[in-house]
């Protein structure tokens, strides 16, 4: 195609939009991939090379909501929440790196080897933590009980 025709095609709103989306998506992927290693604690990074499965503490900039807990549960076992930190057990090394790519995670460090109590620690997160609709169906496709009709918060107690 001649240059002028290409330019005219590019200016068309559909093509321009799709191009912009593609560029933005690619740029974002690049950015997250580059920024990920900085979130890993150096000690953790060293351990990842040696151990295939680790326990980590994930520090966020805010108290985690049910959304985040569910997301973490897809990668490991959530042992507890204290303030803005989530203790995540049995995470594979590649999953740690995958988690590091999330921009809303501040820091991932190696967890202490002491086992922390699981029960009750969830309620430590203050404020309105919506445990929300505690049904399955996320990326892992678990199939627990059906969601109740609206306005009946399920799973608010753990």
């Amino acid at each position: 195609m001649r240059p002028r025709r290409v330019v005219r095609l590019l200016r068309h709103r559909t093509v321009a939009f799709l191009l912009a989306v593609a560029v933005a998506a690619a740029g974002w992927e690049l950015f997250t991939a580059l920024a990920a290693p900085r979130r890993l604690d150096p000690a953790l990074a060293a351990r990842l090379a040696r151990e295939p499965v680790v326990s980590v503490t994930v520090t966020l900039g805010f108290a985690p909501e049910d959304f985040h807990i569910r997301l973490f549960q897809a990668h490991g076992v959530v042992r507890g929440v204290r303030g803005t930190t989530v203790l995540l057990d049995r995470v594979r090394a590649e999953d740690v790196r995958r988690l590091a790519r999330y921009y809303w995670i501040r820091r991932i460090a190696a967890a202490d080897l002491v086992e922390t109590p699981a029960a009750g620690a969830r309620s430590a997160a203050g404020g309105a933590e919506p445990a929300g609709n505690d049904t399955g169906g996320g990326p892992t496709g678990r199939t627990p009980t059906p969601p109740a009709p609206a306005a009946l918060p399920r799973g608010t107690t753990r």
Partner: protein
Amino acid sequence: MRAATVLRGTLPFAVLVGAWALVAGAGAVPAMFLPPPADVARVAWELARDGALALHVAASLARVLVAVAVSVPLAVALGVLVALHRRLAAVAEPIVAFFNALSGIAWLPLAVTWFGLGWASVTFIMFNTVFFLVFFNTLVGVRLVPRLFEHAVLTLGGSRRHVILHVLLPGALPSIVTGLRLSLGFGWRALIAAEMIATSTGLGFLIYNAANFHQSDTILVGIVTIGVLWLLTDRLVLQPLERRTIERWGLVAAGS
């Protein structure tokens, strides 16, 4: 000729039901997943006999009727009124288009927040869907009526009322009726979805509740009823309406 048309309409379904019976009868699929047609027919009869089906159908249809009866006159009246003022119309159009895009079911959480669970929220969803679509189509329809016709009536001594009743409304009717068809289509679907979530009567509730008990036969009865009701609405309400308005005014031939 009539018999041939009826045959052509029902034969495909007969074949479908036959294939269904074969698959279900072969035992390849457990009855819980695909109950045989005989089971479904039996459940349909039971539901009809003890009035449960009638109850749910009536609940759904009542919501449709209430929503349409209130929203259509309101939407048409507002649409004409707004269209008469050029600047107002230019502004209103994108706003109404946006609310159109805001699908009916997306209103449900807000409706439940305001009205709680029950028929009010569900009817509100239907009302919303119909209102904005008919409003939009009325607005667009009136705005597209060529000015020439208005001027002609005014020149001949007609009053403002004449212009509205005899030029703008008929001119906008094809658009309005199209809007009605679309909004009923969207609205019926939104209604079924809303009934699954927010209330305890209606066809949506019937099939969603049956899923909790793995009653696939009841679900299929509900699905067939939903489809049949829409097809009946299309054949008995929408198509005659389109014939009398759109085709009468010489515009688009009402298609299939």
